[in-house]
């Protein structure tokens, strides 16, 4: 990444920093974030864990945030029953619901002040874009669930409307569950169909002992958008973090996830699906760090690349010396649809202790010809048969979406994306 880019970054920061809200991130921390970023440099494709990300988009983008989002909201997805919905336009809260009982939901731009607990692991090279978020964020939402609160649901809808030349949006979220709390979060990233927005989100998850968070993340930004994302989670003893991510939108999408399994028996379940078509690039990096005994990771990734698209998943499981009895499983599969499409799957294991059970599998291939012929022999049109098989391929992930309404929404969305064939949609 060129020095010129860093200079521009500093200049842009210098021009806007005085207007950035202190309550979202204190000026001192913003300045430190920029300094750290300039010292480390922006991510570059020559770095192993960034090689599949299209980072050239940064050269054309404006880093400064959209200050006064003025766009109109698109039609939002059907509300989900039992979920309090919060809608953000270009990173700033636009509409909110009544928070579930006992739960604190706070937009830092308008209320309160940023406290502690927004660390994204800046020492990790994969978390650097969170520094950019820290420096430029114009709003942040902090959600806290008290100990043993009733299970409840919150939906966060981030709409990117403004073009990247006019400014970026920086969604910023903190989810903190106290001991024994249970929460379901649906986090959507959508955009206006044709807006070439730049989104750089940062999400921080903190689970106290025995807390259980089910987190659905749906990235369905517009076809010309750029979506960057950093998620850092810290899990205490016996906490369970269930993350289900479906990424279908944006021209370039990159998500970096870092889960720290710090307490005994903590459990991280990551199920992710990505769909690339045209010239899209979908890239996900996930680091699961086992720090305590009996911690578990179960990772499932299914990606389909068609056209000239590239779909990448890089999953690293690191088992530290303190993490005896770790159990980790990785199942990564990619489906190539077309001679110019690319799938890159990397399961990585780093083990520094004994008595662990770690398994991983990664395969990439084309549609199974026997399956295809079977469906054709039943009268299905070739395009329907292909779409059905692609659909089936993603099912390992989609089937885990426990919320029936949400699953149906995703299925309809995928059916639309996978096919023009109305017949498939009717089947769902």
């Amino acid at each position, binding site marked *: 990444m060129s020095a010129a880019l860093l200079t521009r970054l500093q200049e842009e920061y210098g021009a806007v920093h005085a207007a950035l809200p202190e309550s979202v991130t204190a000026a001192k921390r913003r300045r430190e974030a920029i300094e750290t970023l300039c010292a480390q440099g922006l991510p570059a494709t020559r770095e192993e864990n960034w090689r599949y990300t299209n980072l050239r988009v940064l050269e054309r983008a404006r880093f400064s945030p959209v200050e006064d989002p003025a766009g109109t909201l698109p039609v939002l997805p059907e509300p989900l029953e039992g979920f309090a919905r919060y809608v953000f336009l270009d990173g700033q809260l636009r509409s909110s619901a009544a928070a579930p009982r006992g739960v604190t939901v706070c937009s830092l731009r308008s209320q309160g002040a940023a406290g502690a607990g927004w660390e994204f692991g800046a020492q990790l090279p994969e978390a650097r874009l969170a520094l950019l978020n820290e420096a430029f964020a114009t709003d942040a939402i902090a959600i806290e669930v008290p100990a043993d609160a009733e299970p409840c649901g919150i939906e966060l809808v981030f709409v990117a409307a403004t073009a990247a030349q006019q400014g970026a949006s920086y969604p910023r979220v903190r989810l903190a569950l106290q001991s024994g709390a249970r929460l379901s979060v649906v986090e959507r990233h959508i955009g206006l169909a044709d807006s070439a927005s730049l989104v750089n989100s940062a999400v921080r998850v903190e689970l106290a002992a025995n807390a259980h968070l089910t987190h659905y993340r749906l990235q369905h930004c517009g076809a010309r958008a750029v979506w960057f994302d950093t998620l850092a989670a810290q899990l205490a003893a016996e906490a369970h973090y269930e993350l289900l991510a479906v990424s279908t939108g944006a021209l370039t999408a990159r998500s970096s996830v870092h889960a720290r399994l710090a307490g005994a028996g903590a459990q991280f379940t990551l199920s992710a699906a990505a769909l690339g078509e045209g010239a899209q690039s979908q890239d996900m990096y996930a680091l699961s760090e086992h720090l305590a005994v009996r911690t578990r990771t179960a990772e499932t990734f299914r990606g389909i690349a068609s056209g000239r698209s590239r779909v990448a998943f890089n999953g690293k499981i690191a088992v530290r010396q303190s993490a005896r009895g770790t159990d980790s499983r990785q199942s990564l599969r990619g489906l190539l649809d077309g001679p110019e499409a690319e799938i890159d799957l990397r399961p990585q294991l780093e083990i520094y202790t004994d008595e662990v059970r770690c398994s991983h599998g990664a395969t990439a291939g084309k549609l199974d010809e026997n399956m295809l012929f079977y469906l054709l022999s039943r009268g*299905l049109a070739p395009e329907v048969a292909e779409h059905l098989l692609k659909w089936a391929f993603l099912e390992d992930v989609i089937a885990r979406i426990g919320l029936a309404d949400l699953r149906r929404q995703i299925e309809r969305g995928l059916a639309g994306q996978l096919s023009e064939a109305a017949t498939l949609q009717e089947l769902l």
Partner: protein
Amino acid sequence: MLTIKNLHAAVDGKEILKGLDLQVPEGEVHAVMGPNGSGKSTLAHVLAGRPGYSITAGTVLFKGRDLLALSPEERAREGVFLGFQYPVEIPGVNNVYLLKAAVNAARKHRGLPEVDAFEFLTLVREKMRLMRMDESMLSRGVNEGFSGGEKKRNEILQMLVLEPALALLDETDSGLDIDALKVVANGVNTLRAPNRSMVLVTHYQRLLEHIVPDRVHVLVKGRIVRSGDRTLAHELERRGYDWLLGEAA
């Protein structure tokens, strides 16, 4: 219904069918028997349109039309059904989705509206009872985790729901215990009709005790070397195939 003349088919440059003639009139059930490697399964797959086979000579007429000119899905919609010897498992594609998609593809082809969802399920349930299949199988992936016998029952279930004009059953009896064989045979028998023909490809005579064929043909080295009534099957059971091998030369 089906007229095959001088059919030659090769796979990977190796000729498997070498001038096969076969005629199956409307309403009849024919058995094609033969030793391993004689080309029985190739015949079934060539008729269903499986890619990978090259037809080097011959004609196949189905209801007076050139069957070989049709794509696999067109053949299916026209009423050709292949019951697979080894049905594939397709996790994630629900059995009932597939059945409904298959039925609607054929209906659309005939200019009919889509099947009513409720009537369709009622029909499928009725056929499942006939095949002694558990209803829970409907919501499972196609053949996913099914035993060999369950897969074969599922093939016949699909056939019962699709009501094809021509059913090609490839070794439907293989891997079935005697009770499952009876269930499968019973399913096939309920579909016998004056406007429907069936070709049973089988290695053994035991299926033919339950589905009595109108004609029996012996396929050896890619050609039909002998045809007869059902007593031919008994003779094969008694004498094996060796005595016919010379006739293929």
